[in-house]
């Protein structure tokens, strides 16, 4: 469906998405549908989403314009630097129209500041990279940029959002952007100087010389050799010893040197090898680093994007009922049971059984027969057998149920069997307070209703059910005693 997008086009799409994400809005249904159909990863879907929004075209256009405007500013800067370089060389070659050029004077004015600033850049980069990005020429441009943004009206408009999106990416890479700007301006400066040198040296006759007041001639010879070492090693012509010595100016008339070609070659070699080429190499490196940062994929951990992600590729797209529920019996609502004190005393010996809870030491006082926890088919068989064979005959069976368990059909089936075993069955529900703590009051009340209806379905009459919280100290003990027939 989507053709492979070109790198710049992808970059524009990212910037467009980032510009549009600034306007907080509820997810657009139609755009979401487009995004979901888009193949590929989350970023592709995000880009497709923003691309499908109504403002996408205008925003993209504005993103391009902002970038073009930046490019224009940079171009203008380079042209100015080029002109400045040419002008500097013109001055160094003697704007007064003289024909003798002080070689070292020219070198200092053309390469001196460049080298110093280059060193400063390298040192700042090594020591405090953050300061380098903040407080250099590039940062001044960024500050201007921010001012321009404020002029654009801050929030709201598409231009401001587009500018902010571009500005953010540039800002994230500002250390390398600033470096690239600086290197490119200096490269333009040096290129301008070279160009002007070609023009002047082609159209006029110059003589290179050097002069000194306090230094001796030998140190200039050594210095020139040092400068000429690299060009010489590369096989470029350099001034000979004789030519160097001959170029010393002692005042008075112009000395005609035989070896101007060596000096011209050294001039260009120095400008290019020590000035232009390092700047171009560093420019390429800075650009590469800056691009790598600026072309980073969308940051999905940005809240604007992170909030959209689940909508773009939902974990669950649809759900459906595979097998419908049978027509169920409606839930009983509010079956009421009597208080413990309203239950009549037992007509004879009492047996106790635990449902979902242990009996024995959990009981406030023992009963005539303790059937223990009825858990599973075997325990049930044993309990029913005991109820049938116990002598004297058991008159009442108290089944204690823990409300923390959820009553189910298994409860009804089990209680039905116990209820059929002979003695009257009394249901005692316990653990209410703990349940309220776990579920809250309304749900705890529902749970009791569910238990009552499960027991009721087993054939136990409502008047044979009650709730006593056995954990409730003395109150529980007296109620319990009454229920099992012990003297209070």
């Amino acid at each position, binding site marked *: 469906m989507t053709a492979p997008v070109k790198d710049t086009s992808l970059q524009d799409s990212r910037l467009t998405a980032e510009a549009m994400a600034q306007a907080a809005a509820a997810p657009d249904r139609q755009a979401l549908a487009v995004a979901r159909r888009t193949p590929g990863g989350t970023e592709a879907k995000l880009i497709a989403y923003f691309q499908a929004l109504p403002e996408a075209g205008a925003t993209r256009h504005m993103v391009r314009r902002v970038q073009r405007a930046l490019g224009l500013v940079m171009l203008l800067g380079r042209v100015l630097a080029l002109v400045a370089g040419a002008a500097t060389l013109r001055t160094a070659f003697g704007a007064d129209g003289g024909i003798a050029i002080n070689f070292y004077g020219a070198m200092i004015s053309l390469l001196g500041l460049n080298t110093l600033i280059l060193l400063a850049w390298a040192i700042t980069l090594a020591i405090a990279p953050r300061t380098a990005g903040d407080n250099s020429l590039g940062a001044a441009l960024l500050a201007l940029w921010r001012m321009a943004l404020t002029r654009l009206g801050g929030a709201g408009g598409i231009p401001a959002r587009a500018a902010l999106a571009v500005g953010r990416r540039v800002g994230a890479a500002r250390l390398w952007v600033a470096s690239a700007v600086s290197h490119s301006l200096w490269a333009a400066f040096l290129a301008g100087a070279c160009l002007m040198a070609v023009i002047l040296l082609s159209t006029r006759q110059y003589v290179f010389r050097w002069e000194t007041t306090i230094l001796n001639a030998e140190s200039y010879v050594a210095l020139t050799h040092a400068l000429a070492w690299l060009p010489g090693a590369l096989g470029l012509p350099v001034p000979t010893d004789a030519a160097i010595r001959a170029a010393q100016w002692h005042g008075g008339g112009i000395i005609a040197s035989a070896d101007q070609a060596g000096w011209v070659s050294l001039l260009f070699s120095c400008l290019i090898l020590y000035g232009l080429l390092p700047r171009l190499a560093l420019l390429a490196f800075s650009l590469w680093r800056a691009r790598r940062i600026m072309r980073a994929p969308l940051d999905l951990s940005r*809240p604007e994007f992170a909030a959209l992600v689940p909508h773009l590729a939902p974990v669950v797209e649809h759900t459906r009922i595979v097998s419908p529920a049978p027509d169920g019996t409606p839930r009983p609502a509010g079956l009421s049971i009597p208080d413990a004190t309203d239950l009549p005393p037992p007509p004879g010996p009492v047996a106790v059984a635990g449902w979902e809870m242990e009996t024995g030491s959990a009981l406030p006082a023992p009963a005539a027969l303790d059937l223990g926890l009825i858990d599973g088919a075997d325990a049930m068989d044993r309990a029913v057998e005991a109820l049938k064979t116990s002598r004297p005959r058991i008159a009442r069976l108290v089944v204690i149920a823990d409300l923390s368990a959820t009553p189910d059909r298994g409860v009804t089936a089990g209680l039905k069997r116990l209820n059929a075993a002979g003695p009257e069955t009394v249901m005692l529900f316990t653990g209410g307070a703990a349940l309220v703590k776990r579920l809250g009051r309304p749900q705890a009340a529902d749970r009791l209703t569910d238990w009552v209806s499960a027991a009721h379905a087993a054939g136990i009459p409502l008047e044979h059910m009650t709730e006593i919280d056995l954990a409730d100290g003395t109150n529980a003990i007296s109620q319990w005693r009454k229920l099992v027939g012990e003297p209070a």
Partner: protein
Amino acid sequence: MNAPLQMAVVGHTNAGKTSLMRTLTRKRGFGEVSSRPATTRHVELAEIALGGEALIRLYDTPGLEDSVGLLAHLDGIRQRQGVDWTQAVDRLIADKTLENGFGQEAKALAQVRRVDVALYVVDARDPVRARHRDELEILGRCAVPVLPILNFVADGEAREDEWRRELARKNMHAIVAFDTVVFDETGEITLYAKIATMLDRFKAPLDRLMASLKARRQQLRQASARLIAELLVDTAAARQSYEQKDPAAAVQAAEHIKAAVRTREADCVKALIALHEFADEDYALTDLPIEHGQWTEDPFDPATLAGYGISAGKAAATGAAAGLAVDLMVGGLTLGAAAAAGAALGFLFDTARKHGGKLMDRLSGIAAMTVSDATLMLLATRETALAKALLMRGHGAVTPIAPGAAASPTLPRDIVSTLKTARRHPHWSGINGGSALGGGRRQEVVEQVQKIIAPRLQ
């Protein structure tokens, strides 16, 4: 494209099957969850997809209720009809008369027989009972691998060890502890990892799913930290100037900035809740004091600070200016360190822009209200607590997560010192009118604060 992995979620009634579905699918609205028995009586399918490809078909089934009776019934079929256990299960499923009374169980078992793996959910707070043993017995006879999931393990009453012992006796050694209410990301990953070992033909898609879950989790953590960091930078950079000689203006400025900060914080709360796919109206989202998407305790009230164990400091202002600081300083703006060689032009430009306004204010007798460090700390702490609570809240939860689970995180004072930079840049704050401008430096401070907060959301 391979066939998706089919999983059935089974278990005793009210063990939290639908809650597990909600948590795994991140869908709050899936099915119906209540504390009553037999809430789910149908089989419902949810497809977990990754990049548009269905990886898992997850089936929610009705709860098993009378497993003791069912086991006896199956044993009856087996003996009467002379078939093996699995065939007996199939006969039960095929029996459409429903006279056997096990319609609900038959529905669940029918689904189990059709899937690749059954997730057996238990409420780990329950003691191990015969009904559970019989359920395991029956599931063990369905010729499908069973992975027990211990739900509610984060609850103090959970009997995890008892359950592990019992399951080991049933030869189930691959067990996952996974609380559907208090969400534990490692639990979810472990669940899929265990399934991947049980069913190695699904390993590749499950690995992809796990990687995507981890990435999303990381994304959420970072995005939450980012929202909080943006709030903090906006608040730290907020300032309201006023005529120094006019006491009424000071009160007005204080009220103005306080109102703006409150609104900004409410926006942050809203964004956090939406980011985590919850809604304000979700019943009792957390146990934190938030109502209608707004904290009930005022961030400028010294009592609130005390509640979070934050000292308001010795110069704590009271009355209208509580929680605020008055900025009259021009000192402390050292120009030294940054004046690196070659950086002069940009530096001077920046400095004039940064500090010139303040200097002018000072000369013209204008002071500015800013938000105090203590209040910043409070905002950081409680928003982090909220984000943490949201990260821990399973989508299956119907009650607020237990108190203490999201205890207030302790944040280092680094946050305040990092935010100092923001104080010098009023234009960084959206609170001061307009949108938050500021290029890479603002972004960097936001990211630094984000880096401090994100690890506290683990």
